[in-house]
C-alpha cells in the first residue's frame, strides 16, 4: 500500500478565517457541541444500527425460538430445553457433527502444511513475483459454487478425470459421492484448492516480518536451512498461524456451499447424509422441515462447537510455538 502518497498532502481547501476561533455565541456553541461531541456517535451509528437489526436481534431470537416446538401445521409450543435434549440424542445431528469435524481435519491439516511449504517458496527471490503470487491466489476469485461444480465433474464416477487418472494405476473407479470417506476427501480437496494459496499469501506476509538478521546469525552458527525453517520461521510465525487457524476453524465448521453443490444443490448431503454438515443440517431443519425451533437450537450448538474448536486450536498453536 502506498501510504505516503496521500497521507502527507495538506488539506486542499483552507478554511475561512472567520471560523478560526469558536465564538461563545449560543447557537454556535450548540453547533460546536454537536460537531465535537455528537459527531463521533453519528459516524459510528450506521454500523450499530445494522448490528442491532441484523446481528443482535437475530441472535437473541435464535435463542428464543430454540425453546419452542414448531410443526408444519403452524402450532407453536414451549418445550424449554426439549430441542436441545432431543438433539443430543439425534443420530442425524451427531452424524452431521462428525462429518463436519472429519472434513475440517482432512482439509485443514494438509492445507496448512502445504501453505507453509508454498509460502516458503514464495519467500525466495523469484522472477515474475506478482504473476506468481496472482497465480497462487487465482482459486480464491472463483466462486465456491463454480469450484464445486467443476470438482463434482472431476470426481464423477463414470466420466470423471480423477477416476480416469486412478485407472492408469489399475485402480477400480471410485463412487466418490456414495461413501463417507471418499466424499469427505473429495470435498476437502475443493476446500484446499480454494484456500491453500490464500493461506500461503498470509503466511508469506508473516514471514516477511521476521527480521533477516535472525537467519544470518543462525547461518553463521552453522544451522541448516531446514533447521532454520523449523526453529526460526515456524515459531516466529505464531501470530499469523493463529490468525490462519482460527479463520479456517470458523470457515471449516460452517461449511455449506461445497457439500451442497456436490449433491446437486440438495442440503441432505448424499443419499444417507454421508457428507451433510451442521450448516446443511440447520438449513434442512429450518427450511425443508420448517422446524424453526430445532434449527435454532442446532445453530446454538454449532456456535458452541466453533467456540470449543477455536479454543482448542488456539491452545494447540500456542503450544507448538512455545516448545521451540
Amino acid at each position, binding site marked *: 500500500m502506498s*501510504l505516503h502518497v496521500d497521507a502527507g498532502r495538506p488539506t486542499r481547501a483552507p478554511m475561512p478565517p472567520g471560523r478560526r476561533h469558536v465564538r461563545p455565541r449560543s447557537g454556535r456553541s450548540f453547533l460546536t457541541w454537536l460537531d465535537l461531541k455528537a459527531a463521533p456517535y453519528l459516524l*459510528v451509528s*450506521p454500523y450499530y444500527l445494522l448490528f442491532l437489526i441484523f*446481528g443482535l436481534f437475530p441472535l437473541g431470537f435464535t435463542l428464543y425460538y430454540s425453546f419452542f416446538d414448531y410443526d408444519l401445521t403452524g402450532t407453536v409450543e414451549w418445550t424449554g430445553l426439549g430441542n436441545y435434549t432431543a438433539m443430543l440424542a439425534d443420530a442425524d445431528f451427531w452424524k452431521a457433527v462428525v462429518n463436519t469435524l472429519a472434513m475440517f481435519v482432512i482439509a485443514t491439516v494438509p492445507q496448512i502444511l502445504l501453505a507453509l511449504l508454498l509460502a516458503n517458496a514464495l519467500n525466495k527471490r523469484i522472477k515474475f513475483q506478482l504473476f506468481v503470487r496472482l497465480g497462487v491466489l487465482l482459486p480464491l476469485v472463483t466462486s465456491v459454487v463454480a469450484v464445486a461444480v467443476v470438482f463434482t465433474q*472431476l470426481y464423477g464416477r463414470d466420466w470423471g478425470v480423477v477416476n480416469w487418472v486412478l485407472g492408469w494405476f489399475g485402480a477400480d473407479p471410485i463412487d466418490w459421492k456414495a461413501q463417507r470417506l471418499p466424499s469427505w476427501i473429495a470435498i476437502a480437496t475443493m476446500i484446499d484448492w480454494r484456500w491453500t494459496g490464500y493461506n500461503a499469501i498470509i503466511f508469506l506476509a508473516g514471514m516477511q516480518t521476521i527480521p533477516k538478521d535472525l537467519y544470518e546469525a543462525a*547461518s553463521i552458527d552453522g544451522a541448516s536451512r531446514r533447521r*532454520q525453517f523449523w526453529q526460526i520461521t515456524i515459531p516466529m510465525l505464531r501470530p499469523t498461524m493463529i490468525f490462519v487457524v482460527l479463520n479456517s476453524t470458523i470457515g471449516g465448521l460452517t461449511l455449506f456451499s461445497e457439500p451442497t453443490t456436490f449433491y446437486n444443490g440438495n442440503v441432505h448431503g448424499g443419499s444417507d447424509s454421508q457428507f451433510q454438515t451442521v450448516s446443511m443440517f440447520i438449513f434442512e431443519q429450518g427450511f425443508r422441515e420448517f422446524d424453526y425451533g430445532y434449527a435454532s437450537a442446532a445453530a446454538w450448538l454449532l*456456535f458452541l462447537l466453533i467456540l470449543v474448536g477455536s479454543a482448542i486450536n488456539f491452545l494447540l498453536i500456542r503450544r507448538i510455538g512455545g516448545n521451540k
Partner: protein
Amino acid sequence: MTTLSAPASTRRRRAKAPGGASGLWTATPMTRLILAVTIIISAFPLYYMIVIASRTNTEATDMPPPFLPGGNLGENIQRVLTNPDAHYLAGLTNSLIIAATVTVSVVLISTFAGFAFARLNFRGGKVLLLLVLLTMMVPLQQMGIVPLYRLMVSLEWVGSIKAVILPYLLNGFGVFLMTQYTQQAVPNELVEAARVDGASTLRIWFNVVLPAVRPGMAVLGINTFMLIWNDFMWPLIVLTPDNPTVQVAINSLNAKYGTDYVLIFSGTLMSILPLIVVFILFGRQIIGGLMEGAVKA
C-alpha cells in the same frame, strides 16, 4: 505497494554481501518446481471449465476426457441464457446490483466508523470497537438465519433483492480494517491542524481522511464485492428461483439438469468472468491488502 517491495530490495542487497544467509533466499530448482506445479493446479479447474463449456455433452462424457476446448461455446451460452428454469440473465443482473450496492455502502459505513474510532476521542469508543471485534468471531449467517428469514417473511420481502442486500450491510471486518487503515494513513497532527483551522468533523472526513484512506477503501471494496458475489446460502433461502442471484441460478441448473454438463459449466464460466476481470484489474491491490491485513490482525 511500497512496503511490499521494500523487503525484496533489502534482500537483493544482502544477497550481494559476502557470506551471511544469502543462500537462504535463492530459488532452488525445487522452489521453481513447487511454484510451477501450484500454478498449474490453480489454473487447471478454470481451464477445464472452458474445455467442457465449449464441448457437447457426448464429448464431455468421453473416455478419456477431452482436454482441449471445442467449438460449441457460443451455442452453450445461448442455451444457458434462454433456459426457462435458470433465469440466468436476471440472476446476473441481480448479483451485479446486490454486490455493487453492498460494496459502496459497506465501504462508506466502514470509512465513517473507522475515522471515528481511529482519530476521534469519544466516550465508550473503545468498548464499541471491542464489540465490533467480538461480533467478527460470531458466524452470524448461520446463527441468525431463522429469525432473519422470518423477519423477511413478515416484511413480505421474500423473493426481493432487498432481503438479500440489507443483512449483508453488516460487516464488522470492514470497520476493523478501516480503523486500522485510518490509524496508519491519517496522522493525528493533520486532524488537529484541520481542527485548529476551524474545519468541522464532516469537513475533516471529506478533505483530510477520505483522500488518505482511498487505497484502504479499494481493498475493502474488492474484498466485499467478491464475498457478496460468491455468497450462496442466504440468497438460496430468501430468493425464489425466478428472481435469483447468479449462484442460485447455477444451483437451479445443477438441480434440474444434473447430467447436462456443458450447460452447467457454461453458466458457471460466465458467473466467474466478472471476478476474473476484477482480479486482473486489481490483483496487485488484492494481494497487498491481504498481506497488510494479515500482519496487523
